[in-house]
């Protein structure tokens, strides 16, 4: 029952900065996901909350206490590791009860809590087994069970699903989500997989090089990325990014992509771009729509392009072609064969185009 608060947290390894001046409040019962490429500082942040990594600067609060100087054991948090870190010399039952035994909880109470956890996770038949006799998914469950049993103030997950195969990962993802709803506790979850982040999180923090790039709900970070990095990191396939020059013809602004194509700019955005020479355009692949009968209106822009490659995926077909110097992906929700070299007509709703400053890469 506690919120976790990070105040100006910095972590340095010698001269290398792993986390820079991080501020964050995680309210009780929130499912917070830290996501970013490897080396972005997300795991370091988690390990600082756990107390496994010393804090170079700043303060961490759990509840209303500063925990900077506290040992991991006194922070009342549980951590689930990427490789599960089950105790190989103990049975499932002993693994689950270990933390309580250390805390000198009564045997009866230990039994009760272990039984509860075993039931929640469906481990009834495996109680007497050793970790080496379990499958990957089962080990994952035991690792979570070990965290549950302690009734911690916060759960910390460090890439818990990355050692599982794709199918199992999807399944465990759902289970973690359900578990959170059942247990009603704070979860801080680290992953490099943006799909995991999107599906699990109440709030996502996208990190890069020790800095927070954006904080927001999954929908927010998807629909309103604050910069090019977030735009390309969240969403699959990544958002198409195109460099363009801004030109003015007869009092109208256009984005010149190459010698043939000029995308008109919506009038509502003139103020944002009128002083600029260059721009970065971001368009999600589902917003580049292959169209047979184009819509008319000022917010639509149509163009024809030759297809370089098509990849049918069943529900959709991904079409690859060049726009300016960049390779672009479009999604066609119409299962038909597309030949290489075929010329298709595409339509873009200009309201769905993201604009980024060409220098700062920040959203306009």
């Amino acid at each position, binding site marked *: 029952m506690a919120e976790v608060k990070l105040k100006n947290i910095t972590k340095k390894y010698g001269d290398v900065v792993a986390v820079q001046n991080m501020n964050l409040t995680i309210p009780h019962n929130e499912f917070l996901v830290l996501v970013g490429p490897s080396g972005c500082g997300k795991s370091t942040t988690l390990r600082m909350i*756990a*107390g*496994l990594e010393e804090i170079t600067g700043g303060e961490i609060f759990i509840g209303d206490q500063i925990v900077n100087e506290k*040992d*991991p*054991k006194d*922070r009342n*948090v*549980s*951590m689930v*590791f990427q*490789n599960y*870190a089950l*105790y*190989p*010399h103990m049975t499932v039952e002993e693994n689950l009860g*270990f*933390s309580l035994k*250390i*805390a000198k909880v009564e045997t009866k109470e230990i039994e009760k809590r272990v039984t509860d956890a075993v039931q929640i996770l469906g481990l009834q038949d495996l109680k007497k087994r050793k970790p080496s006799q379990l499958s990957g998914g089962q080990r994952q469950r035991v690792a979570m069970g*070990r965290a549950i049993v*302690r009734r911690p103030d916060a759960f*910390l997950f460090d890439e818990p699903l990355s050692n599982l195969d794709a199918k199992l990962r999807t399944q465990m993802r759902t289970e973690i989500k359900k578990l959170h709803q059942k247990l009603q506790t704070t979860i801080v979850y680290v992953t490099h997989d943006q799909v995991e982040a999107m599906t699990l999180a109440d709030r996502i923090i996208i990190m890069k090089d020790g800095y927070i790039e954006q904080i927001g709900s999954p929908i927010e970070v998807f629909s309103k990325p604050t910069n090019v990095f977030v735009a390309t990191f969240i969403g699959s396939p990544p958002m198409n990014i195109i460099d363009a020059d801004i030109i003015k013809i007869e009092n109208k602004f256009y984005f010149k992509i190459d010698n043939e194509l000029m995308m008109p700019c919506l009038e509502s955005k003139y103020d944002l771009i009128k002083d600029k020479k260059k721009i970065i355009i971001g368009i999600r692949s589902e917003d580049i729509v292959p169209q047979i009968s184009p819509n008319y209106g000022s917010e639509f822009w149509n163009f024809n392009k030759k297809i370089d490659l098509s990849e049918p995926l069943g529900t959709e077909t991904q079409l690859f072609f060049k726009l300016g110097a960049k390779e672009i992906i479009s999604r066609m929700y119409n299962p038909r064969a597309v030949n290489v070299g075929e010329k298709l007509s595409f339509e873009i709703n200009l309201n769905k185009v993201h604009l980024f400053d060409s220098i700062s890469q920040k959203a306009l």
Partner: protein
Amino acid sequence: MKQVKKISFWLLVLLLLILICLPGIWIFISAFRPNPEILSKPANWIPDRWTIYQFTQMFSINGYVSVPAFKYLMNSVIISSVSTVIAITIGMMGGYAFARFNFKGKNKIFLSLMLARAVPGISLSLPLFILFAKIGIINTSFGVILVYVAMNVPFTIWLTDGFFRQIPKEMSEVARTDGCTRLQAFWNVELPLAGPGIGAAAIFAFLLSWNEYALASIITRTVHSKTLPIGMMDYLDEFTINWAGMCAIAVVMIVPALILTFIVQKHLVSGLTFGGVKG
């Protein structure tokens, strides 16, 4: 052609086995033969009669003691066991520190420890003899134990460092978030996991003490503290050797060593190589 290759291959293996085993077997056989038979010319390959005379002599079952081997054996057992327990305890602490912590001069300290171990026993025995005589622990089990602890510590560190590093760091970390202190995490998780390896290190230390000669031959002076390797020399006079007796005491020395080796051989190799390979 393939057949020839195969046969010569197995002949080579056989030759190897003979070279390794024959000397020991010959000693073993001789220990149960009377001296005149050993000395007979031409050689008497197959013993005419077996005798345990040398052993009854050693262990004074007939009330007559030629060489107080039983006392030597007890000295050896006590000195080797006690020094092993101490060496393993403090060596393990050191190994843990090298495996789990980063600190200034880590590699240099490690190297210095190993180099200290490289000092030849005989070169060390001169000053040790004088110093131990001065502080009055010459010819005591305590003195020998002290020396063997120091001799065994560096190698124990080398081995246990390897074993602790084989255990993922997360084991200790998860135990600590599970509510353990570092010491509890070590005691409940890391020590049980490294157990077999530490056992191997212990047996290695035991054997080094059990077999050591150069230092013990100087520090121990009388039956009060002499160990088996020193006691063995009782059978060796300037000009004559009691061959059967010496073979018998050799058997007493080697049988425990072989049994212990047999128990730990698997872990021993993994410990030696792991510590060395994974820097």
